[in-house]
């Protein structure tokens, strides 16, 4: 453990925040920590833009006849989907926590390509601005899935402009993935073998594989869609000999692995939090690490389960259904290993751990309902209904956003040098858990009862459950606004954080000061013990 500096001097010592001031030091920085903060503020902004659209949708669904005109509602759910998927969920943890922590966790001074990292943020902002421009001019009403031939021929909204926005921000995701892969391969500190890498790094390595291998396919799909919309050559238009199912194949080839881009970083954060707050090594470290890679690889084989009813041949559907069950196993292994880690641990209930409990419970429900959708006969009944909406919100909001909030609270001291108010944070976590379940559990029932998704008006018999869902959404909104307030307050006025407030293991806590200097370490770190060595055993132990 490096020597503990008395409180007073911590602030004086130069760190990545106070080493330089002024907008130039932010907009032209190549320091991965500052780029992480740039991403943090822009992603939070997009999260609340997407959230505003969600509030609009829930208000409209209070009554069977809806509040808004059809077109407005169609644009609301489309923009909610696009902003949340491409501008919040895909970049969130990798671009913020990943950017900030991976170099420190592997013991490097920065990512492999710092300038490409800055370019990645600029591409994200340019893509975001283009998408916002499309919204300002009237938005797009094709759904975030842009299905042809509606998007290529029949919709008269700003499809091409939005597609360009998503296309540009896609390259931001590719470059982040490329940066992480090269950093993990070539810039690990001496002693930091693959078997000692924190699971946070394993999770992001798997995510980067998907970002690098999947995103280019949606880039070319959007280019073809844009060309089709201009030339009407018929590549996706059945009236001119094209096949709209081909668009769905190319779209979902990226978009299903994209949901693993969203959840794997969440799992990565949860592995760290559960190990730290149980004060115990992760149970089955090798299995949890390898299951991240297994999810990344198998994730590319299963996209056909989005096309069971779309006109795909029955034999292909059977193949995709079987593969979709295979991909569920690594996720199950992770959940079992987290639970087993808590066995005989010494568990404390700080906020990150509350979010971890929430994640494990809700992600389990989200994953299991995924099995419902992988079962062919059930999918025929429930696809394109609110059952699917509930499933992916359980995984994305119940899983990913909970892990994101948990990660932000867990590393907030390291990032800002300050502590957040514990009781307010616990209260907010509770509200998020309650609000979330009230919002999305009724949608499972709505889904099996047959209420289709993307409906501006719905039959009266579905109203009661919809009102419950809207009520839940308002609670959830409060749950998301609270952290904004107390974290902003804590950034300036929170109590000074010691170097390792949670007594956690890992280079970022033990060998890097809080907040870290520009090059992360005063002396080059050397790793001598296995990851999560909370029990203080000296020698290398045979991995489970």
């Amino acid at each position, binding site marked *: 453990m490096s020597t503990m500096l008395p409180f007073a001097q911590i602030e004086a010592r130069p760190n990545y925040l106070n080493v330089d001031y002024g907008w130039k030091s932010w907009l032209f920085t190549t320091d991965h920590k500052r780029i992480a903060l740039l991403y943090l503020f822009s992603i939070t902004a997009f999260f609340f833009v997407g959230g505003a659209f969600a509030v609009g949708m829930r208000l409209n669904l209070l009554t069977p006849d809806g509040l808004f005109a059809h077109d407005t509602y*169609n644009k609301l759910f489309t923009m909610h989907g696009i902003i949340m998927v491409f501008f919040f969920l895909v970049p969130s943890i990798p671009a913020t926590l990943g950017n900030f922590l991976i170099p420190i966790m592997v013991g490097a001074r920065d990512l492999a390509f710092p300038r490409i990292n800055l370019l990645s943020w600029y591409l994200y902002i340019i893509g975001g601005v283009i998408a916002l421009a499309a919204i300002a001019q009237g938005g797009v009403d094709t759904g975030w899935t842009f299905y042809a031939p*509606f998007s290529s021929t*029949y919709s008269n909204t700003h499809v091409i402009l939005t597609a360009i926005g998503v296309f540009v921000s896609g390259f931001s995701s590719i470059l982040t993935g490329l940066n992480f892969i090269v950093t993990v391969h070539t810039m690990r500190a001496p002693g930091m073998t693959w078997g000692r890498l924190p699971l946070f790094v394993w999770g992001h390595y798997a995510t980067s594989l998907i970002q690098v291998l999947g995103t280019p396919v949606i880039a070319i799909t959007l280019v073809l869609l844009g060309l089709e919309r201009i030339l009407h050559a018929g590549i996706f238009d059945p*009236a001119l000999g094209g096949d709209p199912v081909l668009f769905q194949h190319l779209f979902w080839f990226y978009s299903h692995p994209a949901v693993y881009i969203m959840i794997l970083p969440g799992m990565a954060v949860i592995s760290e939090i559960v190990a730290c707050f*149980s004060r*115990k090594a992760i*149970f*089955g*470290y*090798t*299995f949890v690490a390898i299951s991240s890679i297994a999810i990344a690889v198998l994730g590319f084989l299963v996209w056909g389960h989005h096309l069971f009813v*779309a*006109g795909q041949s*029955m034999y292909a559907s059977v193949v995709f*259904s*079987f593969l979709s*069950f*295979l991909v*569920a*196993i690594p996720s*199950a292994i992770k*959940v*079992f290993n987290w*639970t087993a880690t*808590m*066995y*005989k*641990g*010494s*568990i*404390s209930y700080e906020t990150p751990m509350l979010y971890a*409990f929430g994640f494990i*419970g809700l992600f389990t429900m989200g994953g*299991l*309902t995924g*099995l419902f959708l*992988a*079962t062919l*006969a*059930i*999918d*025929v*009944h429930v*696809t*394109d209904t609110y059952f699917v909406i509930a499933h992916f919100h359980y995984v994305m909001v119940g899983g990913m956003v909970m892990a994101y909030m948990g990660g932000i609270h867990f590393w907030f001291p390291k990032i800002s040098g300050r502590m957040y108010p514990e009781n307010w944070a616990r209260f907010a976590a509770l509200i998020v858990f309650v609000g979330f379940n009230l919002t999305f559990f009724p949608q499972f029932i709505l889904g099996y*009862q*047959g209420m*289709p*998704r993307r409906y*501006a008006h719905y039959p009266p*018999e579905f109203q*009661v*459950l919809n009102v419950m869902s809207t009520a839940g959404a308002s609670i959830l909104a409060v749950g998301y606004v609270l952290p904004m307030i107390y974290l902003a307050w804590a950034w300036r006025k929170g109590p000074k954080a010691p170097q390792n407030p949670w007594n956690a293991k890992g280079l970022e806590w033990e060998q890097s000061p809080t907040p870290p200097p520009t090059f992360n370490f005063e002396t080059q770190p050397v790793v001598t013990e296995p990851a999560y060595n*909370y*029990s203080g*055993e000296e020698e290398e*132990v*045979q*991995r*489970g």
Partner: protein
Amino acid sequence: MGVFDIFPARASAAAGNVDALYAFLLVVGIGMTAIIFFFVFLFAVKYRRRNADDPAPRAIHGSLPLEIAWSVAPFLIMLVMFAWGAKLYFDNYTPPLRDTFDVYVTGKQWMWKVQYPTGQREINELHVPTGRPVKLILASEDVIHSFYIPAFRLKHDVVPGSYQTYWFEPTKPGRYRIFCAEYCGTNHSDMGGWVTVMDPHDFAEWLTGGTGGSMKEQGEKLFQQYGCVTCHVTDREGRSPSLLNIFGKPVVLDDGRTVLADEAYIRESILNPNAKIVKGYKRDIMPVFQGQINEEGLLQLMVYIKSLSPPVSAGKESSK
């Protein structure tokens, strides 16, 4: 249907099978969730940190047998789900080959046009008899829609440019909702309607009510008008395969494949004849009709061509 009913109204035998599978999945799902919630709660309380300076617990790095157990066990349960789901999927999407009551449904931006072989036409309404397999032949005139009847637990995307089919055998008379389940534009949420299940007696009565020129006659007119009859029926020079008695039977193609002469095959052979050439016949003989015959005309031609293959005498059991 009550507000909190987890099983909506059921109007066909297949719906019962799907509900049984759903019940099985619910049991497995709720069971697994309960196990996880129980253990997380138990460990969180039992092993909570009493005071700050508790000794760090001993590391347990993992156990291979446990890892294998909780990988293989879920996989076996999943195999049951997979096989059961796949079987029902094939049953529901593969119509019986003979004596089904065929209804032609065409999706158009924001309405469903339903046509019966006897010529009746309806908008957003479907009338079906109980106790007899009803086969839906689905087409679309513009974008992708999806003909969804929750009471039968069935839907299928209606992809323009091809026919999709599924079938059901209604059991409970009543009125059930029809929805469009694939987003198709502005009034996607208003593109619904009602399916009325009637017992055979009332249905026969209803059927004789509205009589327009039956689809078969209009199909025959088109069959003459486009000159199909000259090659496919009267011509004996063998330039093109005869269309008598071919519907529902396998057809051997020139590249050796065997294809079933169903609606999709006939439609494709009209619009894009070179796609599948029957063994022993030459390519590039039949003109391409892509873009010349609209959906309605195609459906009428289909009914007429099917009438050229009279169903085999009722005695033979339909192979399902």
